[in-house]
């Protein structure tokens, strides 16, 4: 872990849905000030749940942090409402490009500035977002529901940016986008992190990409963190190479004959 002071800390949190379904079984994560941290894992590993536990949206889905603690800038936030957590500067970008379909792109952005009040501040903020996403400015009056996938993704990132976040929780920004667009969006994310010094907790299925933008990463499986370390180290780890990057040591594609081997290793990993 880097020497910087962590802005967000999860201490062994346990999350239950509907008071019975145990989804997270003791997750500990640290996000240092001004850095990107990646959270990797397969479908259903609990990545999105972790983000929702931090942003407080969990309560909206009848989920609850039943054990452990979440600390943001030295303050415990896991019992607070989503609204209060947002006021403290944590903004989650929910997966699946949830734009407000019937509003225009600009109106979407303005809702993002909801907590920042009206008037000048909002306009400056809007210009700042447009400087990162010039394409949004071009199409500012387009109804968001009819925008392309890339534009929608830019819109939801820009929307969170409007709120001048102190921590961004970014859930699968690459989902369902063309490779070129993914590249563009990730470049913007990196730029945001560098220039605005916004720490980002990034959930991603595209492991290769995530490991290039984030200097540090956690790997989740079945509601637990099974591995963490600097991205360079993880990239060389044989299990990560096997299960997430789809490479053997020789750098060639795996043959189907080694499927059994896959299962054995996977069980060990969990």
């Amino acid at each position, binding site marked *: 872990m880097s020497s910087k002071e962590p802005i967000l800390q999860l201490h062994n949190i346990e999350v239950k849905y509907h008071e019975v379904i145990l989804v997270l079984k003791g997750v500990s994560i640290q996000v240092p000030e001004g850095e990107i941290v990646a959270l990797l894992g397969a479908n259903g590993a609990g990545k999105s749940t972790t983000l929702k536990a931090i942003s407080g949206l969990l309560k909206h889905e009848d989920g609850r942090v039943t054990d452990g603690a979440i600390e943001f800038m030295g303050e415990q936030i896991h019992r607070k409402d989503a609204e209060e957590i947002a006021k403290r500067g944590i903004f989650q970008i929910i997966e699946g490009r949830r734009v*407000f379909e019937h509003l225009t792109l600009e109106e979407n952005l303005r809702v993002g500035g*909801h907590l920042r009040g009206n008037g000048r501040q909002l306009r400056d903020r809007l210009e700042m977002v447009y400087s990162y996403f010039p394409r949004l400015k071009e199409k500012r009056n387009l109804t968001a529901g009819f925008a392309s996938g890339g534009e929608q993704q830019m819109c939801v990132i820009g929307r969170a940016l409007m709120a001048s976040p102190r921590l961004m929780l970014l859930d699968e920004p690459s989902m369902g986008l063309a490779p070129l667009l993914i590249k563009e969006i990730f470049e913007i994310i990196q730029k945001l992190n560098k220039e605005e010094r916004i720490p980002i907790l990034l959930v991603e299925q595209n492991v290769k990409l995530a490991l290039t933008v984030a200097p540090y990463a956690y790997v989740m499986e079945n509601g637990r963190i099974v591995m963490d370390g600097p991205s360079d180290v993880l990239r060389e780890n044989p299990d990560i190479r096997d299960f997430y990057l789809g490479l053997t040591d020789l750098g060639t594609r795996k043959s189907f004959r080694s499927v059994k081997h896959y299962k054995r290793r996977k069980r060990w990993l969990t």
Partner: protein
Amino acid sequence: MEVFLNLVISGIMVGSIYALVALGWVLIYKCSGVLNLAMGELTLIGAYVCLSLYTWFVRPIGQPTLAFLLALAGTLVIGACLGLLTERFFLRRMIGEPVLSVIMVTVGLSFFFKGVVEFIWGTDTRVFTPEVFSKKPIPLMGNIYLDSVYLWSFVASIILLIVFVSFFKYTRWGLAMQATADDEMAALSLGVSAKFVYALAWAIAFMAAGVGGTLLGNVNGINISVGYLGLLVLPAVVLGGLNSVPGAIVGGIIIGVLQNLADGYLSQFTPGGVKEVAPLAFMVILLLFKPYGLWGWERIERV
């Protein structure tokens, strides 16, 4: 022809009152997906509150118009407070429950409100005394006349409609309400307080319904049957598309005109009640062809 024009014009005037109430209804539906079946009782409460304020004010002030305007302003304030209280005590705890349960709560509220109104104000028909608007018809052109009650009701509803719609379109909280209507979870993630949005929707609904009830009470006098306005609002909003604000306004006006025409042309052939049935019949026929209403949200699908 003159008869027709007369009917249409006064229909538009009454329709604007429906439009106002329909607007309140649509706001609640848009933001929280709840069909508010207590809307009629909200109009009832508004009408009686305004009547009481008016009889209070009119003696010391002496001038009926001024007293009425003050009473109307008071109705708006009290309406907003009642809306916030209703949301706080009855609907806040229903957040997250199935929509059907919330709708049942509004049914309960409608009975409760009706009971409260009967308890406080009784069941006799009351009228605004002294009259606020003169009964003398205003000549428009040729043989077309208009009661001044209708004209002023029209003006008042249009002003309020403009105020509400611009609030919804151009202010921060209006935008937040639209966002919540679109995607509650995403709105929450941006720090929009869903609770406050609901409270706001109920406050506006109470205000719109209250003024609507008052205006209608000026036309016909106030008794329990003012509450049937709530029933008429349903075809108006279904016509416009359940979650369309402009749709609610146009729908309200169409229903007003339709009612008047049915009353003028059809009631002579029937034992009565065409006026009440016509809007609903029209609604059913329209739904056959446009299941989303005129401007309802169809789901945006990208291909």
